[in-house]
């Protein structure tokens, strides 16, 4: 190799170097290729199908080709449909409350349990059990616990001499929110705990010496350092919360009235009960757009923050 390089002319060498460089640049794409093809088939094709279908008046008995093309009609009707709006509102409220509570409780628990006491690993394992249970089972379980007469909650209230609560009737949305918090707080908890345990220990020690109380350590050191993980975790939960289906289906079937009919449930009912595939597809697309906007918004926000910090730094360095 060394000999060849020595004897070959400079031109030949440059040419060879260019060729190697080009090959080097291409290598990642070669490796990405197969994955890209699979993604196109498995992801983009159904997505395109859905978008295509949303422009049609489409009954499940028809193939997509037979369905009549109606342009944006599905989207427009939906926008004017009070039931759809109600459902959208329920979804937004549901997502907002579950993610807020889950983040606060999950991160709080992680901060509380991030210590080396005997038995702590057992406790941690127990905390993540709810997440491992199948959603349908969770729904069934909570439905029984919420039962107006024989359910655990009302029996407990009664034995304490308190009035019983109409869990899945009057307070249906609150009840499903509680069930979701029970199931998904562990998800936030384990990710927050992992983030906590990977924090630089010595920075926390420095903070203790600098005089930070436990609260100040959390507020000024731990939370800011966990923030990147927390943002991603929150985003994942948010996306998931918008798509939750089984638990609510089992617990309330969207009722009473439309009080717990979240979008995913409405989409599934539109497609199966009302047999309007086009409308269901349009609804899915609204949901997709919403999630996309949320995600992009979040990324844009972090970008903006970074850019601002960089600008402040640049300005300061020019000054000095």
């Amino acid at each position, binding site marked *: 190799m060394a000999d060849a390089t020595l004897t070959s002319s400079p031109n030949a060498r440059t040419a060879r170097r260019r060729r190697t460089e080009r090959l080097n640049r291409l290598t990642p794409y070669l490796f990405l290729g197969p994955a890209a093809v699979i993604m196109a088939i498995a992801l983009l094709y159904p997505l395109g199908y859905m978008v295509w279908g949303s422009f049609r008046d489409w009954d499940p008995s028809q193939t997509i080709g037979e369905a009549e093309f109606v342009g944006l009609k599905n989207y427009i009707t939906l926008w004017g449909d009070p039931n759809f709006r109600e459902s959208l509102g329920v979804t937004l409220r549901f997502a907002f409350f579950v993610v807020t509570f889950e983040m606060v409780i999950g991160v709080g628990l992680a901060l509380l349990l991030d210590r080396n006491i005997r038995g702590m690993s057992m406790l941690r394992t127990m905390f993540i059990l709810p997440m491992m249970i199948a959603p349908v089972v969770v729904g069934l379980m909570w439905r029984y616990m919420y039962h107006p007469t024989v359910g655990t909650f009302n029996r407990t209230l009664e034995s304490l001499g308190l009035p019983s609560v109409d869990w899945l009737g009057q307070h249906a949305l609150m009840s499903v929110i509680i069930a979701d918090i029970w199931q998904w707080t562990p998800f936030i908890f384990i990710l927050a705990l992992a983030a906590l345990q990977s924090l630089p220990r010595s920075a926390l020690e420095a903070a203790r010496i*600098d005089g930070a109380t436990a609260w100040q350590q959390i507020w000024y050191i731990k939370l800011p350092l966990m923030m990147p993980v927390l943002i991603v975790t929150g985003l994942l939960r948010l996306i998931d919360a918008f798509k939750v289906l089984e638990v609510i289906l089992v617990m309330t079937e969207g009722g009473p009235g439309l009080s717990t009919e979240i979008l995913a449930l409405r989409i599934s009912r539109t497609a199966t009960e009302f047999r309007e595939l086009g409308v269901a597809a349009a609804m899915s697309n609204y949901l997709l757009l919403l999630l996309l906007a949320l995600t992009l918004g979040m990324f844009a926000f972090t970008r903006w923050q970074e850019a601002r910090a960089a600008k402040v730094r640049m300005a300061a*360095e020019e000054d000095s």
Partner: protein
Amino acid sequence: MPAIHLDNLIKRYGETQVLHGIELEMADNEFTVLVGPSGCGKSTTLRMIAGLESVSDGEIWVDGEAVSHLEPKERDLAMVFQDYALYPHMNVAQNISFALRLQRRPKSEIDKKVREVADVVGLTEFLHRKPGALSGGQRQRVAMARALAKDSGIFLFDEPLSNLDAKLRGQMRAELALMSQRVEKNMIYVTHDQIEAMTLADRIVVMHGGYIQQQGSPEELFKRPVNKFVAGFLGSPPMNFLNGEIEERDGEVFILGEGFALSIEGAAAEKARAHNHKLVTLGIRPSDLRFDADAPAHKVLSLDVTVSEYIGAQSVLLCKCGTETVMVELASETPVALGQTLKFAVNANGVHLFDRETEKAL
């Protein structure tokens, strides 16, 4: 400011004991330097004083008050960590001012202090950078500045200058020396650097394997090491050790060893006479050997010069005495040629004798 007393301090991690009864008295405004090989427990000692490690046994007294149960923030101290321990999400100015901000000092005072210490460590132009965008040496200076900004009574430094280049290190060392004279603080300083230890310390504490070997002023430790370990640890290039035997001939005390028979006199001779073991180790610092072609044979070591290391005004000769290597430090202009066998006389008080078995100084 305060006097610190480590009272039979012991540290165990589970079954393994890493500190075996550290007994140390540090007076007001004293600059104490801890030295010792890697893993001997310097950082552990420092972290126990700081309150970051629990005390397994013994007690730490600060101004007559037992503090081992106190939280770090209740101990009025500042610390520079071996691994800097900067706050990654804060810029340099925020790192430096964190303690002051927690104390809710007025903003103008904080700004002034930050600028002051940033100037001392030469970081003024980096105040708005995050630690991630700094070099190792710059980070170390931030850690230093953060400790200086916090006006504590006790300063703990864990190898605070280890990552700086020679020039900066010299500057910071001078700055520290100045500071320790100017302000009334109690400073405890860990270092691997001989020059730092010698120049900064009021008192040097040599540690080894979780024990204190010797403590005292730099001069005391350099001139009168209590054992072979301390003698070999302090001084650069290190002390030469040659195994030998004490023998008295016609009232004169000789140390006989492989390739040498050296007559000694003065205090060393007295000690050798009084000692009842014959087997000893002879210790001579490279700087205590001087080239002397005319000295009588029983007053010199005859050494074969094998390598000469030029280090500026001084040169270090690596010589052979029998199978042992002996280093000699002498002025570079001294005319020596490699391969020669030359005679080196020992300076008065240059002879150190250690019992070969216990390694204690005679």
